[in-house]
């Protein structure tokens, strides 16, 4: 079951950090500062960060950055990283061409139908 999160506007203003411009999501070139700001603006889970910024949504499917994002979200929310859910895993596990998918082993059956 999804963990309960209470979300209301932060009483503080957003503070920038000197290392905010370090790239976290290498594929989509999303920086630590952009992720921190998204958390400040209410994105509270890696899935929401992903949908809002495309961080972790690139060609590599978040294999490099997803755990980095979890740590950043945890630190910004002041909760243990354990409590930040991992982003959803989705097929295909590796990029696959549309033409290859279209010719999958069930194609013949599909044509008959």
């Amino acid at each position, binding site marked *: 079951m999804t963990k309960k999160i209470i979300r209301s506007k932060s009483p503080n203003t957003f503070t920038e950090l000197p290392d905010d411009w370090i*790239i976290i999501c290498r594929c*989509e070139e999303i920086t630590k500062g952009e992720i921190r700001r998204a958390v400040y603006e209410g994105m509270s889970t890696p899935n929401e960060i992903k949908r809002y910024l495309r961080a972790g949504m690139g060609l590599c499917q978040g294999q490099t950055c997803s755990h980095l994002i979890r740590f950043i979200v945890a630190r910004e929310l002041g909760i243990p990283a354990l409590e930040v859910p991992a982003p959803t895993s989705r097929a295909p596990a590796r990029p696959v061409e549309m033409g290859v998918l279209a010719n999958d082993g069930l194609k013949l059956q599909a044509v008959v139908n």
Partner: protein
Amino acid sequence: MCSASVSDSASDEENIMRIQNHPILKQFEKGKAVSFYFDGRILEGFEDEPIAVALKANGVMVHRYTSRDRKPRGIFCAIGRCTDCVMIVDGKPNVRTCITPLREGMKIETQYGVSKEDQVK
């Protein structure tokens, strides 16, 4: 298959980067020597080794420039996961060069964003 030996014509870079005699593994099994094109230049490598390995042996480090910040990228994970090393191979963009085998006459090009030329400039 023949064992890797770098011909006299190989670049100095190639002599430095290719391991000639490994204390444990000795010689590396390689396919036949082939030529390929990198941004129009003719380079040498071995058939079936990953494109990225052949480029590395020739001292090529930059595989692409990113879409947003136009920053250089090269080999990072070398096992097909991170997708940092993608290039345009025989006209097709986003090819993971670290797991795509080299073939004779392949045309490898630096990738800019998702395209050949830097369309932003």
